[in-house]
């Protein structure tokens, strides 16, 4: 599979010269399979550029939303395939305990927040509430599970027929409530089963250690927690993702360098940069 980062920023788009290298668009990752399956992980502002790269031959796109916070859905209305009647789009995401995925999405995709309503879109659109289990999408087996983040939030584990695994946990606080992290085995850690022995893990890295202490319970990880989670999960390659909008490129270089030097992970770490592509 081919994995491309179209938006690596968390919380709020942060365009500007000081963020040009890591990127200012919010969460969006494109996944393409060898047989042509197209998955889009989250619909942050990065999805607009992704949409522009999908050729006329693409007839089906599956958009997998981890949750419905604004930074993960804001680009949805600007995803070009939504306006093509010849395209079949499936949107997957979590319902809440009281509202369906459609009802929750309509809160954004309807006036006054957005001029076009979900039902007015010309594409053939289907909404699926994620089953928190396994589902086959094209050539991929997609597993999902609720993870530690405010509101209904899932992570995704995407496996191809060769057994190659990508795990996507952009908003995730596995250390919440732990006196020391990690202190429990993987089965008792949020996201542990999703990330286990992944070939590539894309994971929340929003805070430095000091910031995290002021944001416990906000649903995000410190860089150190992310690296320790990668070790616990025995991943092969980790992509720090969902960068804090207040962190400049220089900040991220320094913070990642310090965290990696301190944790000394036994696997490869490549800080997530907008536009980066990984072949698995």
């Amino acid at each position, binding site marked *: 599979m081919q994995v491309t980062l179209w938006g690596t920023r968390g919380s709020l788009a942060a365009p500007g010269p000081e963020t040009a290298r890591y990127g200012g668009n919010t969460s969006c990752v494109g996944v393409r399979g060898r047989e042509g399956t197209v998955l889009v992980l989250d619909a942050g502002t990065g999805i607009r550029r992704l949409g522009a790269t999908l050729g006329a031959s693409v007839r089906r796109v599956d958009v997998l939303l981890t949750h419905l916070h604004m930074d993960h859905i804001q680009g949805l209305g600007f995803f070009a395939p939504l306006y093509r009647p010849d395209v079949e789009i499936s949107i997957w995401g979590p319902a809440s305990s009281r509202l369906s995925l459609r009802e929750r999405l309509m809160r954004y995709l309807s006036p006054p927040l957005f001029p076009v309503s979900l039902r007015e879109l010309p594409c053939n659109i289907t909404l699926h509430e994620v089953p928190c289990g396994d589902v086959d999408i094209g050539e991929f087996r997609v*597993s999902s599970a609720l993870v*530690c983040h405010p509101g209904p939030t899932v992570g995704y584990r995407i496996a191809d027929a060769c057994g190659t695994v990508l795990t996507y946990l952009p908003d995730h606080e596995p250390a919440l409530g*732990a*006196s020391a992290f990690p202190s429990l085995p*993987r089965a*008792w850690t949020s996201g*542990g089963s999703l990330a286990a022995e992944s070939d590539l893990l894309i994971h929340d890295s929003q805070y430095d250690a000091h910031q995290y202490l002021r944001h416990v319970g906000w649903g995000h990880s410190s860089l150190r927690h992310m690296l320790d989670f990668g070790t616990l999960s025995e991943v092969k390659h980790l992509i720090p993702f969902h960068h804090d909008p207040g962190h400049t490129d220089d900040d991220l270089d320094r913070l990642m360098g310090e965290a990696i030097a301190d944790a000394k992970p036994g696997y490869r770490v490549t800080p997530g940069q907008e536009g980066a592509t990984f072949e698995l």
Partner: protein
Amino acid sequence: MPASKSIQIILARQLASCVAAPILLVDAEGALVYYNEPAEAIFNQRFDETGEMAAGEWTARFAAMDDDRNPIPAEERPMMRAITKGHPVSQTIWLRRSDGDWRHLHVTAFPLIGERDTLLGAMSIFWEI
């Protein structure tokens, strides 16, 4: 995908590990998956020593009687009723510790129900009378 606990059970354990009230957690089959330090004091048994236990095992290890000192069958214990009935249960019971001593407890058990009304397990909070 490798088996893992649900996020609700994981968070329930984290909550239990941070509070002073004795708490016990079971999964949807009634298997004991965790009890916290205050509960350890009542059971006279550390969780690390027992680990997770099947329903039949933990209900036998920690036998229970009602206020009239009649044995409570495993399926009638508050935790099991919370699972099978799907609603909270409160009851006073006598519980046998690991050293054979009996303690009089007030137990409140309630089911943990997740998305799509999926039963995930149950939590009981109890204290000595």
